[in-house]
Structures are given as structure tokens and as C-alpha cells.
């Protein structure tokens, strides 16, 4: 088996987390290698330029891995939820909607609030400066000043056009006395960082223009410029560990050649999706699982969609799909019969 030279940091998975980690760590001067089991998704690969894009995004370009049949995918057996993932450079940002709300201060303190989940080891205030950095790196849009959130820096670009659908919903929320605010999105409203601003096409299921921050267009170029090495079609099959139990690198199969190699690393970062990460840890002699919780209690991003019918044309096929957010019900109110809250996005 061929051995690659040891690197400082090995990142497994070139999606959103892996891309950001690679960019930041490589820029800091570390020798970074990233393994990605899928390939690059070129802009012309996307269905956006075809007239059957609506059908394609329900099938071959569905965010749900079980609705596609792509060679980069692996099926996930589940009866409880859709499994949103994309195996390729940029990961799920190839097919996501890029809504970009932050966690709230109370989200980090659920242990104190009700004890049904632990507190985070960090607070919102500790994380906030990094939110700001990430927004600048990724390119976001939005409007500072939401009274339902802590103060924040202005977004790198201003809010996206307020669609007729959002206007209508805002009017309704005003009538109800509910909160609403222009939503933050990882979509640039004007040219930024070499990428064109959103053109309002309404196909918010990934974006080959890069107006929506597709990380292969927005973050990976920075990581590569900073010196990170990215190996597409390299499937990590097992993380090896030393006598001290710490990770020493990963055994990888090149999906094009079938060659098995070992990439040694001082530090291994597993960034392979909520399904792929525990899968790899469990396949690596139960690595990092002294708690016996790896692979248990998976909580997907819970999303409930509603359709609203109104008595006037609102041209909901135009513009960014989520230009309004309501945080009216974001904090816990036990009179609702449950803990925690939810956000409404339209």
C-alpha cells in the first residue's frame, strides 16, 4: 500500500465544513490534505440551464440521497426522514437552499433552560466573531438590526429583493402582530468576491452561477490558493489510530484507479455529513466512541413545509426562495406543549 507523506491536518469530506476548515487552516500555514469521495460538480453539470430543471431537482438532483442514483452516492436505510447529502466537492452546498440564520443565545444553553439536552461548551457570544468571519468568507446577504437576534455586523451584501410572496406574508404577519425580518442567506445580492449577484431566477437548489455560495466556487478556490491539497474520488474507508488511541491517518481507495493508499496526518478532521461521519468512525474500530453515542440520536435538520394559497398573483417563481424569516416562535414557550422553538421562512 502506498503511503503519502504525513500532513499536518487530514480533512475527510470536502463539503461546507471541510472546505472552511481547509481554507482557514491552509491560510494559517498548515499542510492540509482533504479527501473527497465524489468529484467536482461543474456549473454546466447542474440542471439549471435545462427546461426540465423542475423535474431534475426532484429526481437526479434531489438533495435526498435516496431519491438519486448517482455513482458518488451510497443509499441510506431510514424510515424516519429524508437524508440530505451530496457526495462531491462542496458537498450539500451543490443542492442546498442557502438559508443562513444563526443559532440564538438560548440555543447554546438548553441544558440550563430545560435539561433535555446539554449546554454547548461555548456561548453565542464566543461564537459570534466567527459567524462574522464565516459570513465574509462565504458571502452572505441580509439586514442587521433584527430585534429578535443579538446585534451583528452588516452582512457583506444587502438583503435580496423582497419578493411579492414575502411582501404578502409580511403584511399578514403584521396583521397578526408577529415578528418578521428579511432573511439572511448565503446568497449574494450584488457582485462580491468575484462572483455575480443573484439574478432572481428562482431555482434555489444549488446555483451554478455561484451567486448562492456553492462552496466549490466560493470557498474551495481560497483553500487551494492557500495551499491545501484536495483529492477528489478518494474514498476514506478507515481511520487508523496509534497505540495512544489517537488518529494517525486514513486508508483511502481511489475510486478511479482502485488503488489503496494511506494518508498519514498529525490531526484528522472528519467532516463527512451527519450520516457519513459516524459511519466512518464506527468503521474505524469504533473510533472516538467511548461514550457509545456515535451513530445514535441523529437529529436531522427538521423542516416542515406548508403551501399557502392567496387571492392574488405573487410570482413566487421569481427571486430567492426564502426572503423572509419570522422568529416569533423561536424561544421556548411551554404553553405550546413542547420545549424549544421554530423559525418560519418564506
Amino acid at each position, binding site marked *: 500500500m502506498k503511503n503519502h507523506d504525513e500532513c499536518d491536518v487530514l480533512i475527510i469530506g470536502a463539503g461546507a465544513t471541510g472546505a472552511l476548515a481547509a481554507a482557514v487552516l491552509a491560510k494559517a500555514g498548515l499542510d492540509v490534505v482533504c479527501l473527497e469521495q465524489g468529484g467536482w460538480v461543474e456549473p454546466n453539470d447542474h440542471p439549471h440551464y435545462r427546461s426540465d430543471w423542475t423535474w431534475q431537482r426532484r429526481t437526479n438532483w434531489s438533495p435526498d440521497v435516496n431519491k438519486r442514483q448517482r455513482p458518488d452516492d451510497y443509499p441510506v436505510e431510514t424510515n424516519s426522514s429524508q437524508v440530505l447529502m451530496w457526495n462531491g466537492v462542496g458537498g450539500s452546498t451543490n443542492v442546498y437552499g442557502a438559508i443562513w440564520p444563526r443559532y440564538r443565545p438560548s440555543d447554546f444553553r438548553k441544558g440550563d433552560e430545560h435539561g*433535555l439536552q446539554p449546554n454547548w461548551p461555548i456561548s453565542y457570544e464566543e461564537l459570534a466573531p466567527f459567524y462574522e468571519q464565516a459570513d465574509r468568507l462565504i458571502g452572505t446577504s441580509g439586514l442587521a438590526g433584527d*430585534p429578535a437576534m443579538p446585534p451583528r455586523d452588516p452582512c457583506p451584501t444587502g438583503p435580496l429583493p423582497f419578493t411579492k410572496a414575502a411582501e404578502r406574508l409580511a403584511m399578514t404577519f403584521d396583521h397578526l402582530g408577529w415578528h418578521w425580518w428579511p432573511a439572511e442567506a448565503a446568497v449574494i445580492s450584488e457582485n462580491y468576491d468575484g462572483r455575480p449577484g443573484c439574478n*432572481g431566477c428562482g431555482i434555489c437548489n444549488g446555483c451554478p452561477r455561484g451567486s448562492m455560495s456553492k462552496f466549490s466556487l466560493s470557498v474551495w478556490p481560497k483553500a487551494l490558493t492557500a495551499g491545501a491539497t484536495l483529492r477528489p474520488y478518494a474514498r476514506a474507508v478507515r481511520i487508523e489510530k496509534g497505540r495512544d488511541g489517537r488518529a494517525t491517518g486514513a486508508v483511502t481507495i481511489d475510486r478511479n484507479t482502485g488503488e489503496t493508499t494511506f494518508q498519514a496526518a498529525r490531526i484528522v478532521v472528519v467532516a463527512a455529513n451527519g450520516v457519513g461521519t459516524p459511519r466512518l468512525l464506527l468503521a474505524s474500530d469504533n473510533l472516538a466512541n467511548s461514550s457509545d453515542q456515535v451513530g445514535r440520536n441523529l437529529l436531522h435538520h427538521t423542516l416542515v413545509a406548508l403551501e399557502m394559497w392567496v387571492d392574488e398573483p405573487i410570482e413566487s417563481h421569481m427571486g430567492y426562495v426564502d426572503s423572509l424569516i419570522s422568529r416569533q416562535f423561536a424561544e421556548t414557550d411551554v404553553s405550546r406543549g413542547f420545549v424549544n422553538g421554530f423559525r418560519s421562512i418564506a
Partner: protein
Amino acid sequence: MASELETTPDVGDIGITPAASCALLADLIDVLLPGDESWPPARVVGVQAFVAVRLLEERGKEAFPRLMTALLHAGGPFDGLDEPARIGVVERFEREEPEMFGWLRDAAYIAYYENPFVGEVINAKGHRYELRPHAKGYPLPRFDPACHKPRHGRGRYTPTEQVRPVDTSKLDLENNRTRRWGLER
């Protein structure tokens, strides 16, 4: 011989010809999207052809005899039936095969609104509608703070230092589960 084909349907086993099978699907589409004086009927713009190809690609050749059997069981073929009877066939089909019906309905609607002639009708009615909007996008007015910035002053958050325990004693958390969207999904 035909039954060994992997990607081509064979409806002969249920005693129906390909031509009749095609007509059954087209008639179903016609009931779903009949058209009127301005909207072209779905069968005229060929929706059934797109639905047939997508049925094959998504569900395989086995879906064809299953669909035809279901339509015949629901009262098809549609030949000679008046409109209420045609609708009745589709309603029975929907009741008896709700999942298959839902898939076909969605596939038909999507294929219809992908059609250039239908797109032309939508635009003629004064609604800008591009079949391939990503190429140039839609011209939308920029966000105007004077008009669009909220001035309602509503909204609150709980700062970190003000997070307090809530009383969960009245919540039946052990038994209160979302059944339809959780345990039974």
C-alpha cells in the same frame, strides 16, 4: 423475448396493446389537464410522452402493466365515456392507488408547465415566466430600505445570561410524540 427486456415495458401480458396502453395514459392526462379556450390540453402538447419516459426512468418497466391494470380496474378504458364518467374513473384510480396517482399527477403537472406552448400562454396572460430562467434571471427591484425595512419593532431574544429554567413538569414528554411525522413515518 419481450419480457426479457430490461428497459422497455411489456404490457402484452395483461392483454392490452401498446397503442391502447398509450391511449389510456393519454386519456388519464386529458382528465387531469383538459385545457380550455386559452390553455392547450395536456395531451395535445404531448405530456403523456414525457410522463411515460419518466415513469420508465424512475419506476422501471414494471410500472407500466401495474398502471394499466389499475386504470382498467378503475373503469378504463375511457373510450365512449362522458366527462363525468371519465372523471369517475380517475377518482377511483386515485382512491385505489393513491401513491401512484400522486406520482402521475405531479409528473403531469411538471411536464405541462415545462412545455413551450404553455409557457407562451402564461406570458400572454401577463405573467413573466421563463422556461429556463437561470440563463438571465428575472428583473426584480432591489431591496429598498425605505419600503422594505421592517419598522414594527417586534421580536425578542433571551440573552445568554438571562436563560432561566422553564417548568416542564406539565409536559408529557415521555408519551407525547409526533406520531405521523415521527414514529409512524
